[in-house]
């Protein structure tokens, strides 16, 4: 499956003063303290840095346990924490993933299909 068109993008912020990109909206840039931060879309694709399976979840996530957490190094640079879709192939370090769902800081990834 082609991931480029249908894969959602991640909303990040770029500082209009110093150009620093950060993963989430914040009052000021951590690089230069400017408050002139612009939203920027980043392709939600990257590589698994590590992963784990949560079998004892916090109360609000108990109905979905067990579930996999992945830390992803995005091709665009930043590292993000997300979940792995329940119907994804099993994760491994270095596997390529793309997002299938993005809601606030809850990003759900799935493994790219092997060619």
């Amino acid at each position, binding site marked *: 499956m082609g991931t480029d068109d249908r894969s959602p993008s991640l909303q990040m912020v770029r500082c209009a003063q110093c150009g620093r990109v950060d993963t989430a909206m914040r009052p000021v840039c951590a690089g230069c303290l400017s408050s002139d931060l612009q939203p920027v879309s980043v392709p939600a694709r990257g590589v698994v840095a590590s992963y784990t399976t*949560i079998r004892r979840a916090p109360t609000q996530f108990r109905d979905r346990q067990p579930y996999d957490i992945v830390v992803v190094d995005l091709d665009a640079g930043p590292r993000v924490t997300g979940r792995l879709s329940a119907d994804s192939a099993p994760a491994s370090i270095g596997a390529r993933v793309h997002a299938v769902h993005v809601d606030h*800081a809850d990003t759900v990834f799935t493994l790219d299909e092997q060619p």
Partner: protein
Amino acid sequence: MREVAIVGIGSTPFGRHAGTPIEQLGVRAAAEALLDAGIDRARIGAVYLGNFISGPLNGKEVLAGIVADQLGLPNVPCTKVEGACASGGIAFRHAWMAIASGQCDAALVVGVETMTHANTAQTTAALNCAMDNEHDGPSGLTFPGLFGLAWRIHAERHGTTRAQVSAVVRKNKRNGLLNPLAQMGADLSDDQIAASASICDPLQLYDCCPTSDGAAALVLVAKPLAREATGIPVDVLATVQTRGASRIAGHPDLCSFDATVSAAQRAYAMAGVTAADIDLVELNDCFSIAEIIDSEDLGLAPRGQGAIWAAEGRTAVGGQVAINPSGGLLAKGHPVGATGVGQLYEVVRQLRGTHANQVKGAEIGMTHNLGGTGVACTVSILRRSV
């Protein structure tokens, strides 16, 4: 800066203290420390109390003032400090700063937490306050999860096995059997550990520290005043506090905590010693894999060999460097805000030569206290007074 010594120590057992109000646990440990020090209470010029979640779990704050009031201490500044699991270590460093800078000549440090009265959902929610809940919380990540991520990387890079990690669990649980203050000492087999419930792959039940109640306390004085004390003094050679990334994805390496690395480097420089001089260390083994990573970050074991060192017995009492002879968080327990002060209590006992699981001839000891997802860290180095 003036030299500072620890002249009094006190601690409740770590474990369950059902029905005991949190401030009373703190008062018990503090009274023991004051009596051990044997100095006039009127000399105490400041109180620092480490606590993490007395608000959400007990509906109580201003604990430092409440404890000081019940101890009949003078009208001095009483401050509660918070840095998740590092709360106790931070309280200690603040007391050290107050004396070293000449603000006062003696100070009381208390660490206290009660957790076992709450149900699992309440405790989990309270503990998750130590996470950046705007960035890491929404994914459903937990603290065991953070260390599951780290374990996977350690295994990928260094070939770390279940049996090697189990060596840490077995050692700390055995050490706990010898410590009268420990909550969960045990003599475990590899099979028992490997058969325990999966919590967060690859972490299993015995890889995780228990939920605990407990308190510990210290009396610190300016070095010249140590002569007036009846408690055997131990010198504070260094105490350092650092900050690391506040969210998981902010860590450049998920298998190392830069707050620990920088705190250790600065502490060694401040104390004028090297890792090879450390006879024993009480470090933040909230999970088995954490001890392996911490021992590498502190420079005690070579990078990637923390698990091998544990499996070869080099970190046992009688080995190259004794790691967590108290049983650590895994076996002694982890009343979060008390843990850092409890670690210092253990090291002082070792350096006094009066520990139930004594490291023979111990002269220099270290504590390492890491909070949240590595956002706060303290490292302290103590030496037997000569």
